[in-house]
């Protein structure tokens, strides 16, 4: 009989309590939503505090609390430092967020921009990439939720997965982006305090000297600064992160919802606040050998250490942190994806003259539908944690250059941008299967960059920024 860190009833009590509280909070926040703009973009007037917190909390996914320790357990010091470089995504998106606000004051989604800037062909390619990524991430989060809650408490996979999905759909449905952002603020606080407590306890009780000594004797590779596998995949990981943030409507809809003077500094602050977190969560894994903890699978190392050192209190902390981390990403992704479907597919392709109220209603149905589809896809429980996202790097990294060039330069045209994304993705996938996971995003970004460069050189027509204003109609 496996002993769980937390007993099932306590776990169920915690998640149902949180679910009810978050949904009530969502309903309370939603009373201000009068128009579709309120619902989808929180009235485009989000202040600095919420903006910075939501940027940080959304980027703290189950990955930061679980994969950062996993990578540290596998790749050592470089694992955690390398993971923290993912903060570059938020930091580099800061100037872009400002530019996005400026170019598309009335825009709704990243798809809007690609369609207006590059036309239908590139838009089609972009939507395929977005959908693959969003569904991959949604399903992996939903599954991660179920698997983790089960691993920590023995709570049935289907119950855990269903509650977490229903909760996120619930409060987003009532409160829209306002609920997503306000819950993100509280979830960010919970996550930070939780990981800091565990790390502080380890430093105080186990001590860095003994951790360093144990590692240098029995696991020297973990302290190696020239760990080949870690050095090799460092930039691949960075491009993966950049691709995720630059293309995803999760980040664009945030940029568009922030107040004009806030977008830039919110992303910078969010990035800086995020930067140390993977090091703190990763460090938890470095202490494992000293504590005699060797997990069955590497992705369980963080929770295993925390609950073993802090006992039941630790298990509750880990449970709440992981639950918050999952929810803060899942809600954002649900909201941003249903905005994308509502705006880019329903409003632009199906019903061009839809009224504001129709858009809002469709957006809500869409959220329900997406939640339900995610739930269906999570039922078979096919993949292990994160495995679904493994080759997403090839998809998203191909969008980096077309987006950066498209935002600032007028010389790249749609055909080349579309080709760059399609060829980059294909090349990245080929590299993933022929060479290894550590080159997928790198190859994708490089190939797409070359095609964009060719596009800039051979192009004769300059894009006029006024063409972006169509969305105001």
């Amino acid at each position, binding site marked *: 009989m496996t002993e769980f860190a937390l007993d099932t009833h306590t776990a169920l009590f915690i998640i149902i309590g949180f679910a009810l509280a978050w949904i009530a909070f969502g309903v309370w926040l939603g009373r201000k939503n009068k128009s579709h703009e309120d619902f989808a973009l929180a009235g485009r007037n989000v202040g600095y505090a919420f903006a910075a917190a939501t940027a940080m909390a959304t980027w703290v996914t189950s990955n930061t609390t679980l994969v950062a320790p996993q990578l540290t357990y596998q790749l050592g010091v470089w694992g955690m430092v390398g993971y923290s470089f993912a903060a570059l995504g938020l930091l580099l998106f800061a100037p872009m967020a400002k530019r996005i606000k400026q170019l598309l004051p009335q825009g709704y989604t990243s798809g809007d921009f690609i369609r207006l800037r590059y036309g239908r062909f590139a838009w089609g390619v972009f939507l395929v990439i977005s959908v693959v990524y969003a569904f991959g991430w949604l399903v992996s989060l939903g599954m991660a939720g179920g698997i983790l809650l089960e691993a920590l408490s023995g709570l049935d996979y289907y119950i855990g997965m269903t509650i977490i999905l229903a909760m996120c759909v619930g409060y987003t449905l009532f409160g829209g982006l306002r609920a997503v952002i306000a819950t993100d603020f509280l979830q960010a606080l919970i996550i930070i305090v939780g990981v800091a407590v565990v790390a502080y306890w380890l430093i105080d009780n186990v001590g860095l000297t003994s951790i360093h000594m144990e590692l240098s004797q029995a696991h020297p590779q973990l302290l190696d600064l020239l760990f080949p596998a870690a050095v090799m995949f460092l930039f691949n990981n960075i491009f993966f992160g950049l691709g995720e943030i630059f293309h995803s409507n999760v980040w664009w809809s945030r940029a568009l919802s922030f107040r004009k003077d806030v977008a830039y500094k919110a992303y910078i602050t969010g990035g800086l*606040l995020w930067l140390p977190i993977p090091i703190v969560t990763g*460090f938890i894994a470095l202490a494992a050998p000293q504590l005699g903890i060797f997990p069955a699978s590497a992705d369980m190392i963080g929770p295993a250490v925390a609950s073993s050192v802090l006992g039941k209190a630790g298990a509750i902390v880990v449970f709440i942190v992981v639950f918050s981390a999952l929810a803060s990403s899942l809600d954002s992704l649900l909201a941003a994806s249903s905005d994308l479907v509502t705006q880019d597919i329903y409003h632009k392709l199906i019903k061009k003259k839809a009224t504001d109220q129709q858009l809002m209603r469709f957006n809500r149905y869409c959220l329900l539908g997406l939640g339900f589809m995610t739930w269906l896809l999570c039922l078979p429980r096919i993949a292990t944690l994160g495995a679904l996202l493994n080759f997403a790097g090839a998809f998203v990294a191909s969008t980096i250059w077309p987006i950066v060039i498209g935002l600032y330069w007028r010389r790249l045209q749609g055909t080349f941008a579309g080709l760059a994304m399609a060829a980059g993705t294909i090349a990245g996938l080929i590299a993933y299967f022929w060479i290894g996971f550590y080159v997928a995003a790198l190859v994708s970004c490089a190939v797409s960059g070359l095609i964009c460069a060719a596009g800039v050189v051979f192009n004769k027509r300059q894009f006029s920024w006024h063409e972006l204003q169509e969305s105001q109609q």
Partner: protein
Amino acid sequence: MMISETALYLLVTGALLLTVLAPIVLIGLFLKDYFSKSIW
């Protein structure tokens, strides 16, 4: 080439310190927004 104990200590405690600072910054910003009525 192994990371020295001092470097590891600085890395981890530095990161922990910054992490602890984060909620203070966030709550400070929130109070500022709250009193200037610019949360949303």
